């Protein structure tokens, strides 16, 4: 978090980036059809959830 903020991201942007990355890391290990669906869900649930 601190690292991302030191590079200019506000707390909400920093959390979104880290969580998205973490999820992507996990989702890449899933079968393709799951991964596409799950990435959409992550995108939706992150919007406006942090702040």
């Amino acid at each position, binding site marked *: 978090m*601190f*690292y*991302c*903020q*030191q*590079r*200019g*991201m*506000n*707390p909400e*942007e*920093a959390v979104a*980036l*880290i969580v*998205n*990355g*973490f*999820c*992507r*890391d*996990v989702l*890449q290990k899933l079968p393709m059809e799951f991964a596409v669906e799950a990435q959409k869900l992550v995108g939706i649930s992150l919007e406006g959830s942090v702040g």
Partner: protein
Amino acid sequence: MSLVVIDDLHVSVDGKEILKGISIEIKHGEVHAIMGPNGTGKSTLSYTISGRNGYEVTKGSILVNGKNILDMDVHERSLMGIFHAFQYPIEIPGVTTSNFLKSTINARRRYQGLEDIDAVEFLKLINEKMKLLNMDPDIIKRPLNVAFSGGEKKRAEILQMSVLEPIFGILDETDSGLDIDALKIVSGGINSLINDTRCFLLITHYQRLLNYVIPDYVHVLIDGCIVETGDKSLPDTLEAEGYSRFELKA
């Protein structure tokens, strides 16, 4: 007016006073180095400037470009031009170096009221900066700092610094873990950024970085106090005599 004015800075961590009244003024275009043995407060100083939690300023002030930064959030300090190159850069799984760089550039552009950077312009900028640092172009497809070698991590820090173009760069032990070739390349990257619109604070144990990035002033930090300030010849003396000669004074 100096670009950076640190005045009588006292900082405590977990209730213990680590910095005991540091004063440093850095003018536009200057490079200052801070040297000292382990555990004397060098990293505390850099974290205090960038605003990490847990570093409590009990007295004194830090002005950057005339503004008191101590009331500002971490990202606000970054956006006004403070860049802290970390001794141990953080790994960010799942976020490619390219994506991370784009996020940092866009955070800055939004702050300046600009549109997000377009893909072509972004690639052009990154490729140009990476070439300067002799970096493997494929590195931007890999997650930031994940499984990077020590040298790649430090180069990635300098790459970020060169795209964000800060007014005040703090380089915390950027030379540690670099072989001599990487040290020369990283130093070249730092030197290419030195100009009259910005200033730098180099934190280092060793003299070797200062052979390539020549400081205007060198401060010796021992037990939370600056015990001596000199010019670029001071590190030679330190190298020859060690820090022991200060221990009587401190």
